[in-house]
């Protein structure tokens, strides 16, 4: 070992050389703290949803409970629950929150103006629209408030409720999460929203009086 390597052989250079390492670790630490905050929030949201969304509540009450839980933590601009009445060709909105408050939104014919909600229902898969332009290409139906104010969310994520063979042939509704930011919802956030949608679907369709299949041998 050469004389000039002495410092290196003993370990990292003392004093000033420790500075950049500390700064880098401090940065990593801050990133990790941010990640912990996000994950803790996700975990709390899912656990909160399972505590608050109880079978027997009306769809409006259930959607309100979910709205209260997730609106702020997810940084949403708008949120709604739509229920499809396939027989009557109608789309109803038990809860429609935009422009800072819940507003009554009239039902509409699914076949006449399906919009993004209709797309989500017909595809029976979550639909993610990243920008308003992309939304227009998908045939977005703007609300009266959106038309008047010009304040239209850029990101739109719709989760079909009751999608999959176990549920039946067609989904029975959509829960939509929206943000003013373009491309606001990362893959992991969309996974969380999908899980929240599943919990909402279970709660809407859970029947406390239902006898259990296979309970008796």
């Amino acid at each position, binding site marked *: 070992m050469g004389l000039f390597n002495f410092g290196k052989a003993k370990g990292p250079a003392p004093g000033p050389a420790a500075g950049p390492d500390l700064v880098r670790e401090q940065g990593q630490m801050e990133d990790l703290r941010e990640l*912990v905050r996000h994950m803790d929030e996700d975990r709390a949201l899912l656990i909160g949803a399972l505590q608050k969304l109880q079978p027997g509540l009306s769809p409006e009450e259930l959607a309100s409970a979910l709205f209260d839980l997730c609106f702020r933590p997810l940084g949403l601009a708008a949120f709604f629950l739509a229920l499809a009445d396939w027989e009557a060709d109608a789309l109803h909105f038990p809860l429609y929150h935009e422009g800072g408050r819940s507003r009554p939104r009239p039902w509409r014919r699914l076949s006449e103006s399906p919009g993004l909600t209709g797309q989500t229902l017909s595809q029976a898969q979550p639909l993610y629209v990243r920008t308003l332009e992309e939304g227009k290409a998908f045939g977005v139906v703007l609300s009266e408030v959106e038309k008047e104010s010009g304040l239209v969310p850029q990101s739109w994520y719709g989760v079909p409720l009751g999608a999959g063979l176990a549920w039946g042939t067609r989904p029975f509704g959509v829960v939509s999460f929206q943000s003013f930011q373009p491309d606001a919802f990362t893959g992991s956030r969309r996974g969380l929203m999908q899980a929240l949608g599943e919990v909402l679907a279970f709660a809407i369709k859970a029947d406390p009086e239902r006898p259990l299949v296979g309970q008796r041998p």
Partner: protein
Amino acid sequence: MGLFNFGKAKGESPEELAERAKRAESEATQKAAQLEELRELVRHLDEDRLLLLRAAMELRPGMDPKALGQALLEICFKPLGLASFYLALIDWDRDRITFPVYHEGGRLRNQPERPFLAEREGGLTGKAVLSGNPLYISTLEEGRRAGAIFSEAERISGLVPQSWYGVPLGGERGFGLVSFQSFHQEAFPDSRRRLMDALAAIVAMALKAAPARTAPGG
């Protein structure tokens, strides 16, 4: 500035420099430990998050209790480090308890149905179901005092879980219970038990989901 302070003004003495290096090293070690703790926390939270996401996505309506119990077992057994796990269902009219899924000693076993209340008030399962609240037993001794009923395999092998957490399904006088067990004492901290509550809630909703049902008030 005096002539004799010249060295100090230009920088630190070797002793001071060494002292500062020592402090920096100690601070770096401390930060590295904090970083590792945070990484561990991220791993735990990510695991919890994945468990909840998987349970919400994979437990489907229409699955029978056995299939649901097995799906949850598959999702949570390894990540939660469990020793045993079961899903019990109560038939109040017949005073019977059945076990669609009963996993212990490394495999699924057929646990025969038995009277529920007539037999020592149903053990820990009965206690939790009757109260409608989750029950946490953190040691074997505590379990014995609380009236634990041991299975044949437990009696024969002597391998009995120390920690037992049971979450009733469906509130007071509910329709069943999910039990999570570990060989370690005090294995389930509060945050883990909240996660288990949530997993059991998903099972309860999946068991009671009726896809063809018209939503109340809808």
